[in-house]
């Protein structure tokens, strides 16, 4: 990994004339980047700052006023949330829903993605794209038929139902992503492996999967995120089950009129901590060089 990482992130220019000149050249780049970061961060910083303000302040003045004295910062929103009945339990439930759903989806999608990319069969592309195209159908159209089926099997209201549902809804996109990436891997590697006698499963596990780590990492992030923040699927397929994820509990924080929305700011910050951690943790897989050098020969 170290060898790969040192080659990236600083493109050398053959027309260098020195450190200072290079700094100046790169100034527009850095400027552009910081402007982008600022625009993107300001709304989120607003949320973050607001979550530490007293309730009454939030609706009477902008969040930036809390950055200057007198800034009455407080953790009362956070306290209220953590004291709310069932919150801690719901975080655990969210984890127990998100992790298996992610694992199941990504594994199935990777296998299918490889098959769609490197195996030939009749009507493959049309078949594949029909499934992708169906993503446009709003999820509400599927709730009743699927729930009926779950009910018939007897799993409605269990974790399994939610895992299967998330998998079903997420697979088209996952497979789409993986098929695209795996299909772009160099043919030469697979061919030489085939000549060497490697079977499809071997080529899959030993070549395709390791080379697809960046896209698998990206997918893990998105799936985890989507499941973690989901409300509708959990509500529909878990019903009155006591194993409710955090998103369901959070709706309890506000009145039916929307009163108490201030607590949502703190709830949002708590809720985003874990997906953010997943994102940061998986950054190491976004490295160049895994397939570099593979094209030679």
């Amino acid at each position, binding site marked *: 990994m170290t060898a790969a990482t040192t*080659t990236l992130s600083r493109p050398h220019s053959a027309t260098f004339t020195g450190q200072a000149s290079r700094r100046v050249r790169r100034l527009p780049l850095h400027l552009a980047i910081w402007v982008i970061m600022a625009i993107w961060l300001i709304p989120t910083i607003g949320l973050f700052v607001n979550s530490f303000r007293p309730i009454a302040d939030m609706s009477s003045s902008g969040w930036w006023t809390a950055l200057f004295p007198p800034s009455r910062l407080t953790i009362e929103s956070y306290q209220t949330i953590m004291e709310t009945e069932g919150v801690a339990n719901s975080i655990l439930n969210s984890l127990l829903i998100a992790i298996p759903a992610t*694992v199941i989806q990504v*594994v199935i999608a990777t296998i299918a993605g490889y098959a769609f990319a490197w195996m030939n069969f009749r009507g493959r592309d049309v078949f594949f794209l029909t499934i992708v195209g169906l993503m446009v159908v709003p999820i509400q159209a599927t709730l009743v038929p699927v729930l009926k089926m779950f009910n018939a099997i007897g799993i409605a209201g269990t974790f399994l139902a939610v895992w299967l549902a998330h998998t079903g809804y997420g697979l088209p996109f996952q497979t789409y992503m993986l098929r695209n990436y795996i299909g772009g891997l160099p043919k030469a590697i697979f061919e030489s492996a085939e000549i060497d006698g490697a079977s499809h499963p071997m080529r899959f596990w030993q070549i395709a999967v390791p080379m697809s780590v*960046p896209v698998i990492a990206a997918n893990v992030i998105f799936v985890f995120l989507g499941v973690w923040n989901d409300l509708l699927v959990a509500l529909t397929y878990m019903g009155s089950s006591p194993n409710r994820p955090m998103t369901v509990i959070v709706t309890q924080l506000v009145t039916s009129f929307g009163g108490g929305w201030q607590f949502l700011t703190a709830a949002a910050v708590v809720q985003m901590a874990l997906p953010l951690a997943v994102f940061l943790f998986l950054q190491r897989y976004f490295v160049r060089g895994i397939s570099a050098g593979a094209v030679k020969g």
Partner: protein
Amino acid sequence: MDDRIITALGAVIGVPLLLGGYLWVTEQLLARLPRRVQPTVRPYVWVFPAVAFAFVFMVLPAINTVILSFLDRRGTTFVGLDNYVFFFTNPDTIASLKNNILWLVFFTGFSVIGGLLCAILFDRIRYETLAKTAVFLPLPISAVASSIIWKFMYQYDPPGAVQTGTLNAAIGTLGFDPVAWLIDSTTNNFALIFVGIWTATGFAMTIISASLKSIAAELLEAARVDGASELRVLWTIVVPLLLPTLTVVGTTLTIQALRVFDIPYVLTSGAYGTDVIASQMFTRLQNGQYDRASTVAVVLLVVIIPLMLINIRRFRQQEEIR
């Protein structure tokens, strides 16, 4: 409590093992078949799990939806194209479709370009992870929290009063009167679309970045050493290599633009000329009008077809290149 954790652990460990075993077992079974037949059968075995899920969760409901769109509200009598006639003659629908076109162009366009830009620019700096995190941050924010954030960004207070909205406070310091971003017809659609772009750019950036990293560094080095300027390298090498990924991102965001619902629904309730087609479906469903709701879904499916054709072409091209 232990029960749940055990089930979850079971799933996390069991499923990959199960699938790995599935592949192994089927491979053994396939070995018994004549060599010639194997390559024709194997694909079906491999795609079976994914297809089975897609069938149950997407295909069957979709077929059900298409059927419902030709029936009446009770779901009993065949009414032919009545629902479609209603759909296309309803002024609300036409107005919503126009808005979806705005979303298609601006939301998809700017998010893809933005994601590409971020992926490329951030690749070149040492604090890449920091920058990527900043742009990625909107994604883990739940839809509910996001609506609160943007309500506050766009908040309008009467001229002369203290501005609690970030944007209006900012332009206030420059001496301008506050603007009702969400209510004024000239700004509101774009204000909503920007909220979408704010989130989708991080999404696009993450995916494009993964593909960007897979472009062999040597390829780019070689071109630079040959004297090509950065822009040329980008345009002639990087972008073409990223084209498949850009297609995937573009397609996904196009589908999102057609399905978009949350953002207008919560920020403007779809009023003041910001309504989108998905909220039409939602309202119909709430009213128990499954027939009309299904019509919307079917129209969306039809609209998607050209996009899928583009994808098929892309796939064919990809296979020719490699």
